[in-house]
């Protein structure tokens, strides 16, 4: 009895050991597969941008460049130096910066305020206001193009960076409000009560008490908004053209307007340049992004 029980346990132990080893290897295999699947396009882009056109024609997608040649990067950023038809990214890069910084700032700030009011200064019908704001998250971009174009026209800011700032701020508010509302819901309302008894008013409570503890959600909102606005193509191409265009529109123009030969190396370099800022933001603040999304509770 005792012996048979012991041996059956031993068998079970062996079995679970083999299953574990198998599962572990299987897990690594799947992970490696997915990782290469995602890294492959990036590898092709970087490698191609460093090759000369000659190399591109002769080699395959995967061949390593013969030397590190940054010429196409220089062309993508600063152009070839001759006048007409020479499109390069530098001016549009600054357009995008001029658009993205104020748009991110205003949409984040207004979202923070709105989230604060919706959670800590409840009023009659506040649930409806929030519901309509949420609705804004689900309206497809295309649906607001015409009314927005008309609005910009009436305001006299169509085809300008200011116009794009306004569009992105307005369209960002539903998302930023949602983020901040969900964050402030978990902040104990007793904090606000205590501050009111201490004599702090609406703005003082916001700036002195709530904003200083909002760092995680500010990071989340800034990354989200920055990525959205920087990568936006639809609004940029609809509401701006020529010199006022943001970088994504310019990138498109550059790649499509190549006259004779397709310069893949320049195209790849341009695409990487256009993507670098979002990468930088994510690398700098990425760990807060995960933390801010998952945790909401403020203890203490």
């Amino acid at each position: 009895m005792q012996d048979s029980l012991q041996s059956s346990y031993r068998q079970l132990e062996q079995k679970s050991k083999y299953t574990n080893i198998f599962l572990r290897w299987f897990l690594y295999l799947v992970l490696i597969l997915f990782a290469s699947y995602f890294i492959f396009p990036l590898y092709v882009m970087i490698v191609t941008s460093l090759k000369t056109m000659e190399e591109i024609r002769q080699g395959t997608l995967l061949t390593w460049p013969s030397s590190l040649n940054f010429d196409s990067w220089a062309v993508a950023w600063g152009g070839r130096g001759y006048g007409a038809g020479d499109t390069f990214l530098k001016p549009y890069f600054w357009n995008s910066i001029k658009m993205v910084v104020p748009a991110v700032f205003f949409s984040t700030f207004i979202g923070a305020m709105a989230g604060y009011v919706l959670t800590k200064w409840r009023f009659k019908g506040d649930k409806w206001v929030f519901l309509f704001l949420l609705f804004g998250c689900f309206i497809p971009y295309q649906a607001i193009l015409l009314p927005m174009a008309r609005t910009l026209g009436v305001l006299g800011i169509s085809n300008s960076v200011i116009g794009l700032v306004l569009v992105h701020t307005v369209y960002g508010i539903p998302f930023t409000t949602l983020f901040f509302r969900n964050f402030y819901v978990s902040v104990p309302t007793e904090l606000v009560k205590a501050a009111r008894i201490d004599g702090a008013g609406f703005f003082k409570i916001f700036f002195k008490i709530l904003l200083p503890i909002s760092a995680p959600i500010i990071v989340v909102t800034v990354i989200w908004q920055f990525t959205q606005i920087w990568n936006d193509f639809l609004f940029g191409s609809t509401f701006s053209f020529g010199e006022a265009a943001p970088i994504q529109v310019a990138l498109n123009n550059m790649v499509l307007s190549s006259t004779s030969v397709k310069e893949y190396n320049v195209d790849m370099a341009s695409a990487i340049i256009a993507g670098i800022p979002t990468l930088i933001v994510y690398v700098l603040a990425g760990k807060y992004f995960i933390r801010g999304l998952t945790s909401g509770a403020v203890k203490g």
Partner: protein
Amino acid sequence: MKTLKIEDLSKNFGSTEVLKKINLEIDEGNFLVLLGPSGCGKSTLLNIIAGLETINEGNVFIDDYNVSKVEPKDRNIAMVFQSYALYPSMNVKENMIFGLKQAKTSKDKIKEQLEKVSKFLQVDQLLERKPSQLSGGQRQRVAIGRALVREPRIFLFDEPLSNLDAKLRVEMRREIKKLHQQLKTTVVYVTHDQTEAMSLGTKIAIMNHGVIQQNDTPENIYNKPNNTFVADFIGSPSMNLIKGKLKQSSNIISFVAEGSNLEIPIDNYNFKANDNLNNKEVFFGIRPEHIFFKKLNDNDLEITLRADLSEYIGHEQIMTFDYDNQEILAKFPSTIKTELSKETKLYFDLTQVSLFDAKTEERI
């Protein structure tokens, strides 16, 4: 002059009536505990006193001045919250002086107050720390300190101990009691813990469904509950309420439990009204701690009941007896040996009895 007076106060959230015509008065230096189950309106009442919640009807007076429309900061009150509500981004010192700074108090005065209070509460070593670096008890102390520096007329406490573990809770309870004895400031204290209420309060107001059931000294709340709710709410285990009828023949009144023949004589009981007692449906209330294992007083009534259940809890044991199909609980020292499923002789202390009308559930 009453430090705090509440007059015909009503409050509803939408169609839910939270407070119904509350009237309450507190004399200077008293410690009033608002006690009740969750959802009884006690916290709402406290928030209304603080001015954090609006009033639908009625008035609140502080020092005979109608403060119903006065902002919280101008009411001369300070509040301590359940979650401490320390400002997470500020250190202890900034937390404590935030209110004084808002009130534009002079720097010298702020410094003086901070030193005095932080020494008094023994948080003077913690002034540079952030709330997240403090233990539960320390946070509690800082929260009290933040209230103290304002030198308010009334302290409001909203379940300040319920976030602490059992041991710390008892310690902090004693500290709050000491604090009140030293400062003699008027306190309104909300809790759902009857031990806290009993040990701290000079007056206890028991609330249920937005109505004050009884506002009295702890002794009266315990010994002479106004109605069955108070009788049931106070005491652990709560008072036995035996259903039955009163019997009056000539001048002798007695109680007979449902389905029983035993007449329990009721003498020396202060009836509120002496009429129509015969055949009245009543609850006969006796606390588990007033049922004894042996005769202690001459007037104790001997009664034989069957023991059904014994719960041992260290310093005492709670026994359940069958009284003609009604459960009766009694509390004995744990040293007494008991046997289950056996008829046992018990002694009721009839001087500690309460009687309630079975219909209105009010004390008679």
